[in-house]
């Protein structure tokens, strides 16, 4: 495997980590949702630099060309992040529905109060 691939992967991982760091620092990304991204960037960085580990990993899973294993792994992590976000969106949608219902009921009872017809 050429050194160039490793260097490219390492730089990409470093950029990813730097962007995540800046997003947390400027409070545009909560720590809770940054952790999976940080693990992704960290794993890619480690395997890009530690070439013998990547070599034995790709040998174990039967991938002839080690850099492919790196990108397979990266895709896997992105898949995990996406799946995690799907669960987060589901939860947000649920909470959004509850908020809309609460607000609508609150408005209805507030209108009732202002008409003075004794609704509670």
């Amino acid at each position, binding site marked *: 495997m050429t050194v160039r691939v490793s260097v490219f992967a390492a730089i990409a991982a470093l950029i990813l980590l730097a962007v995540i760091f800046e997003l947390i*620092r400027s409070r545009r990304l909560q*720590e809770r949702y940054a952790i999976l991204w940080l693990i992704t960037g960290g794993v890619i960085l480690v395997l890009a630099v530690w070439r013998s580990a990547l070599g034995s990993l790709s040998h174990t899973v039967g991938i002839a060309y080690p850099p492919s294993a790196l990108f397979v792994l990266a895709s896997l992590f992105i898949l995990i992040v996406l799946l995690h976000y799907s669960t987060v969106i589901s939860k947000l949608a649920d909470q959004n529905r509850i908020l809309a219902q*609460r607000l609508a009921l609150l408005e209805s009872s507030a209108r009732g109060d202002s008409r003075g017809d004794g609704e509670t």
Partner: protein
Amino acid sequence: MTEPLTTAPREDRDPRLAGLRRLAIVPAYNEAEAIGAVIAELRAFDPELEIVVVDDGSMDGTARRAAEAGVEVVRLPFNLGIGGAMQTGYQYARDHGFDLAIQVDGDGQHDAREITMLIEPILDGEADMTVGTRFAGGRRYRPPFARRIGIQLFARVVSLIVRQRVTDTTSGFRAVNRRGIALFAADYPHDYPEVETTVLVHRHKLRMVEVPVAMRTRSAGTSSITFFQSIYYMIKVSLALFVGLFRRNSTLEER
């Protein structure tokens, strides 16, 4: 009130408490068993203390029990976690113009009588926030090994950051004055907030004082932290502390 200002506090007639509106914020998540006793104890300690229970989306009738006890109940429509619940309490304190807010856990582990000691530095004008610590002073608390390591680790790190000795960063037994209320109402960490709030207070140049207190073991329910949650806790708080080092100080205007 003929006592001079310098005497030790009397639980019920401390002249410094005159005209001071004080609020106990009690966050509660599924604490129906314990909440009644917590409220009764607070009432017995100080009848003038107003109490707000923030029900963090409980499913066991915590809000109903608290309302039956006759205190103000703020019911969150779903579980926000302790950070979101506490901040709701501080927003209530700000909106209703309280001078002093005291955090008391809804599970009964905090002894209301210790509030006398807890608010002492604030009444003396020596602190904007006080934290009840289980590790300083003559009273010792020995948590399980892993938890003790975690608590000590964060205590060390936070002590370095705030340049002040901190022994108990996980204690939820706290009191703040108006400045603290304003800060926490505007800015409060989302989950596992205790460690980060200590740093937050320092960064906004508020004064923090630790007060040795005794705490009880939980009177009902089980500890809220599982194994995986404690791993997440360590990672999340470490990350927040690290990134926080690179933020500029004071994001809230001085008041």
